[in-house]
């Protein structure tokens, strides 16, 4: 047994209102540079829908993730090492910018500089790729809220797996939102696809990162990731991906997407896993058993044997304590409501989802029944095979049982807690019917409904004695921030050493504090910095200052 710690996330889909705050704040913190216009480390998709990039879940087309070869062993779906090297000159399986969208800006200057005419001048859209005038025909959220669903939703690769009858009903029945970040997989196919060995999984916390100095832009990681969460920066020629906001979690504060989530639906915590069993679990022959196999790799942090083995591997005691208090472990095991996204890709994804129950309640209420009555709800989950089938394709490789069980637990929680709210006596039978106890339901309700900050995020700090060894210790030249005197080598903006995040933040903050003017959109150092915002108070510059006469 080789115990390793992994930072993981759970998202409660019942609470997602699709506001895209996570996407916007993430973009603001990480990808508001040229070359990353189309890069969304975090995006929120409407399901059913095609997702971002379009139809990324169709692995027959994109060949992301792993598959089993004839001898039942894992191999990269896009081909092994030799095949990768032979197709390195033109990767046949890489999405083009059109599969994402062509980023654009508007010709705002025209509004000011146009000569006096009869017609009002308009700011025409201009492509950020070619610099030419463009027509906007697609974007990251073109099918948001089922916009254009009659034409677009049928291309949803998940929807295509369920039958026609189910499909039609489903499109009428409900939709929900799926926020996505990098899965920071236990068996990451992007890392395995990288010819340069530039991508790596951090041994301390399992975060998957791209070493910007070793990446050579071979682009195989983009193909390898079945979630299409590694992006190619077309200006620097390097791959970039979600970092799990490592500069934040290293000091114990949650990721930007979690911190700014208005629904408070994200949970961050540690899980312990047995690294020796990952490959074996990912190679389970039956896809439907992958969910259980993935759970089987995770270890019980309360088990003395596990604790001893973890200590032997050098996991610090405060990390073990955090693992015991981890909301992730509770949601996966004690409450059994969190499911992985597409376990059939065999990458052992570590961002888990609590399936949405609300659509079932809505459908039930719509038919005139009491949507929160235990009997009705349990019956509806079983009868409404539509949502269960679709959710199963997302979370359990098509096996409806775990989804049904999770939904039953959520339903039990609603009914049980409603009785308490209405001053009725607790009904233990509701809990028992879902395989829980009343006590456990109340604890689960506290975590899911009240979601106290300190219980939602249990993030152990990186150890100070290791601090000098973590990425942020990069002792680059402090003049090398963007626009600084050290930046801009002879080979254009991408050359030289990248500025350490801390250095760049320091200068961004300093510039903003010293500037008298409002944020100039052309000056990216004048941006509001959310990366080191701890969620308390208002960051300077988020809103314009009140003028004297207003107050």
């Amino acid at each position: 047994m080789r115990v390793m710690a992994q930072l993981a996330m759970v998202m409660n889909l019942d609470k997602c209102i699709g506001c895209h705050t996570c996407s916007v704040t993430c973009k603001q913190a990480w990808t508001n540079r040229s070359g990353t216009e189309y890069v969304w480390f975090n995006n929120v998709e409407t399901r059913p829908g095609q997702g971002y990039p379009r139809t990324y879940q169709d692995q027959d087309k994109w060949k992301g993730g792993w598959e089993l070869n004839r001898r039942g062993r894992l191999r990269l779906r896009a081909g092994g090492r030799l095949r990768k090297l032979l197709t390195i000159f033109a990767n046949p399986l890489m999405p083009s910018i059109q599969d994402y969208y062509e980023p654009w800006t508007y010709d705002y200057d025209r509004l000011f500089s146009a000569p006096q005419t009869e017609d009002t001048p308009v700011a025409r859209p201009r492509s950020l790729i070619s610099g030419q005038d463009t027509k906007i025909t697609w974007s990251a959220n073109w099918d948001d809220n089922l916009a254009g669903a009659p034409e677009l939703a049928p291309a949803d690769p998940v929807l295509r797996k369920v039958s026609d009858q189910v499909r039609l009903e489903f499109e009428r029945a409900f939709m929900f939102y799926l926020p996505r970040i990098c899965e920071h997989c236990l068996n990451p196919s992007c890392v395995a696809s990288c010819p340069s060995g530039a991508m790596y999984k951090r041994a301390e916390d399992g975060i998957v990162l791209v070493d910007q100095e070793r990446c050579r832009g071979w682009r195989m990681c983009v193909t390898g990731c079945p979630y299409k969460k590694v992006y190619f920066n077309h200006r620097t020629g390097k791959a970039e991906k979600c970092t799990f906001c490592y500069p934040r979690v290293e000091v114990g504060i949650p990721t930007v997407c979690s911190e700014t989530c208005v629904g408070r639906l994200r949970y961050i915590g540690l899980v312990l896993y047995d690294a020796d069993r990952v490959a074996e679990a990912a190679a389970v022959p039956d896809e439907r058993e992958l969910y259980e196999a993935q759970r089987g790799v995770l270890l019980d942090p309360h088990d003395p044997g596990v604790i001893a083995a973890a200590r032997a591997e050098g996991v610090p005691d405060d990390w073990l304590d955090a693992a015991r208090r981890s909301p992730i472990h509770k949601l996966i095991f004690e409450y059994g409501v969190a499911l992985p996204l597409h376990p059939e890709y065999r990458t052992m994804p570590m961002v888990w989802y609590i399936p949405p129950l609300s659509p079932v309640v809505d459908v039930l209420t719509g038919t005139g029944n009491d949507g929160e009555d235990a009997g009705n709800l349990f019956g509806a989950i079983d009868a409404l095979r539509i949502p269960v089938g679709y959710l199963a394709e997302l979370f359990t490789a098509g096996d409806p049982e775990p989804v049904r069980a999770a939904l039953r637990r959520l339903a039990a929680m609603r009914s049980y807690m409603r009785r308490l709210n209405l001053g009725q006596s607790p009904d233990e039978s509701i809990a028992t019917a879902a395989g829980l106890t009343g006590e456990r339901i109340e604890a689960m309700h506290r975590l899911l409904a009240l979601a106290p900050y300190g219980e939602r995020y249990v993030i152990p700090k990186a150890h100070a004695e290791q601090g000098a060894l973590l990425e942020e210790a990069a002792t680059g030249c402090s003049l090398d921030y963007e626009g600084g005197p050290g930046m801009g080598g002879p080979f254009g903006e991408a050359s030289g050493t990248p500025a350490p995040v801390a250095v760049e933040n320091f200068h961004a903050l300093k510039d903003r504090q010293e500037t008298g003017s409002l944020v100039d959109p052309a000056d990216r150092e004048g941006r509001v910095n959310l990366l080191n915002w701890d969620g308390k108070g208002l960051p300077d510059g988020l809103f314009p200052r009140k003028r004297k006469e207003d107050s």
Partner: protein
Amino acid sequence: MNPLDLLLWVVAPYVALTIFVLGHVWRYRYDKFGWTTRSSQLYESRLLRIGSPLFHFGILVVILGHVGGLVIPKAWTEAVGVSEDAYHGMAVVLGTIAGVCTLTGLAILIYRRRTVGPVFSATTRNDKLMYAVLTLVIVLGLAATVAANVIGGGYDYRTTVSPWFRSIFLLRPEPSLMAGAPPLFQLHALSALVLFAIWPFTRLVHMLTAPIGYLTRPYIVYRSRDAAARPTSSGRGGF
């Protein structure tokens, strides 16, 4: 000995080689972040899918051919029973095919670079210079082969150019060997020296980090604290 010959066939090669080696060392230390293929596949892949493999596989064969022709002495191949005629026949056929593939690929790539808007706007002056020199080297090389050994009666460069090439590395340069070679071979060699001199400062650096190690390394890469503890002056980039 003619001072011009000395300059062209002794001084120039050593200057070019020095710039090539030290330039790479310097670039690697200073500019790991800029060391990339700068792929433009995201913008356009239809033309790239034909042009890029054609060029790259072509040039790999060409490089192998050069290693065979320049590094391996004639005496060795004759010792294993390959006659001059057999060797040249093979070299001309293979070399011409590979050269034409390379040139066609390069033509497609340059056409793509000029006509596809986003690709063109991502092209730097540095790239343009590199393309010009690279094209010149390839055209001259192909012309020398075709003129001497396809149209002409045959020229055995393995008695002149190759020993000169080896003499440079053996630190006993023999410029007179090269001084007598046909002008096309001379021009090809000189343009190649220019290419080697600008090489470390162009996107061609990606060739030196061809990911051969991928064939043998384990699939999943972990970086542990111990590995990260190695002292670095530049620091490792994060995201």
